């Protein structure tokens, strides 16, 4: 007899409300821990900003409006293509370069070894729109510490999966595949930097960069590299895909900065998805606690 893919009987599936309640409980607990240890997430945004202004976007908005060129250049392409073609289990992340404990880590082991956090962050796209997204994930610095980087490691380089069979957008040379990104070590170690594994307490959908993606909320969205398969510690500033593609338009730092326009559009204002009016863009996307990382750096030249 042909053995079919095992199906979970519906009786064994936790009803969603129960599941969500449990998640809420865990989420609230994790949130409390996170809030206690790092009072830096969105909750502590600039004074004078009311909470309503940063109401999270709907799950539907977040999972249907994506820039993920590996699955097509239209914002609706990833939601249409990625869930069909991307296989996220099993998934391994290769950690290497200048560190004492390099290795290939199964996604589950990587996540299980670290504290899960819930963080609601603003996300500002370089195209002048923004969203508020409740992420779940782990702190990037926990993963870095686990690998024991050597003193010479000054930057971290990230690589997305390169497999045109799973990522049909890679069959065209729209960008230089695989997608690359990088952070300076101090940026990567900052408590705001995280590796997301979920949204709204649910596993990360394929179109959002499953199973593991970077979230650095004070930088433009394109820095938040998706579907990471490799993390490498290096001594030189790595190249990042959009900078390779158009160095005059996209820099390495890509800090949200209302003062520095994109050559083709102003960055002074943005539209929060779901709103009709534009709002002023905040320096570092409002996460002013990272400003000290860039003291002495000319952010017009290092954009």
């Amino acid at each position: 007899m042909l053995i079919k893919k095992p199906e979970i009987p519906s009786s064994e599936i936790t009803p969603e409300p129960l599941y969500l309640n449990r998640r809420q409980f865990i989420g609230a607990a994790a949130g409390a821990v996170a809030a206690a240890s790092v009072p830096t997430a969105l909750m502590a945004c600039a004074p004078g900003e009311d909470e309503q202004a940063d109401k999270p976007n709907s799950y539907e908005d977040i999972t249907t409006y994506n820039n993920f060129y590996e699955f097509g250049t239209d914002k609706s392409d990833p939601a249409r293509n990625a869930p069909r073609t991307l296989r996220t289990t099993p998934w391994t992340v290769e950690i290497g370069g200048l560190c004492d404990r390099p290795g290939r880590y199964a996604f589950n082991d990587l996540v299980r070894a670290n504290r899960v956090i819930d963080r609601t962050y603003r996300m500002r796209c370089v195209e002048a729109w923004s969203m508020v997204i409740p992420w779940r994930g782990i702190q990037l610095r926990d993963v870095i510490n686990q690998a024991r980087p050597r003193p010479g490691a000054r930057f971290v380089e990230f690589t997305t999966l390169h497999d045109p069979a799973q990522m049909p957008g890679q069959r065209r040379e729209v960008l230089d595949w695989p997608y690359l990104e990088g952070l300076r070590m101090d940026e990567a170690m900052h408590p705001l930097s995280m590796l997301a594994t979920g949204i709204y307490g649910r596993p990360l959908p394929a179109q959002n960069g499953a199973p593991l993606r970077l979230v650095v909320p004070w930088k433009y969205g394109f820095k938040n590299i998706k579907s990471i398969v490799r993390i490498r510690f290096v001594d030189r500033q790595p190249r990042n895909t959009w900078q390779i593609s158009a160095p005059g338009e996209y820099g390495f730092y890509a800090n949200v900065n209302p003062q520095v326009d994109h050559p083709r559009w102003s960055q002074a204002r943005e539209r929060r998805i779901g709103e009709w009016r534009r709002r002023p863009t905040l320096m570092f996307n409002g996460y002013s606690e990272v400003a000290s990382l860039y003291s002495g750096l000319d952010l017009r030249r290092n954009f």
Partner: protein
Amino acid sequence: MAAPAPWQLQAGRWIRPAAWIGGLVPLALMILAGFTTGLSADPIREVTHRTGWAALLMLMLSLAVTPVRTLTKWNWLVPARRTLGLCAYLYAVLHFATYMVDQDFSWGYIVDDIVEHPYVTVGFAALVILTPLALTSTRGMIRRLGKRWQKLHRLVYVAAGLGVLHFLWLVKKDLREPLIFAAAFAVLMLFRVLPIGKSGKQKRPPARKSPSPERSVAGG
């Protein structure tokens, strides 16, 4: 040349309403999407893209009328040219209106944007150029302007070229669609520059029924 078939004589009556209906299809689809599937999470952006796209499409279709008529001798097509041109202007105006909504009608930003960003500059220029063409599309104006009307309306070539450039410059990376428009525009312009465009006035061999692209090469 044989006398036009009866359906072709009839065509003169319905071509204009047909062009209007066809020209308004993108608008109808947009409204329908607004009520059903929604226009993505960012409807302002989506409407801006769709209206701009439709404006370019209508411009290309109106520019295609003359070559198609020349190649096929379907003179009844001619009224479609003006209708499609007006549809192009309608979409261009909707496109700019959506852009103004997108910019919260903040004139300072809009003026800066037009001055500082070349792709906005050329798009805006195309709209400005199309305005007098749309305003002189009435029968009265055609009569009053006489020969100058045709000269004035040749500006549509400039507007269409700027529109294509606008699309090419604004796209971040995936140039497929703007390049298709650019290729269509190039073909339509070549037709007007090369002698094939003039062959329409010559008598064709009577045996020919359906025109083929090769015909145009042999034509000059």
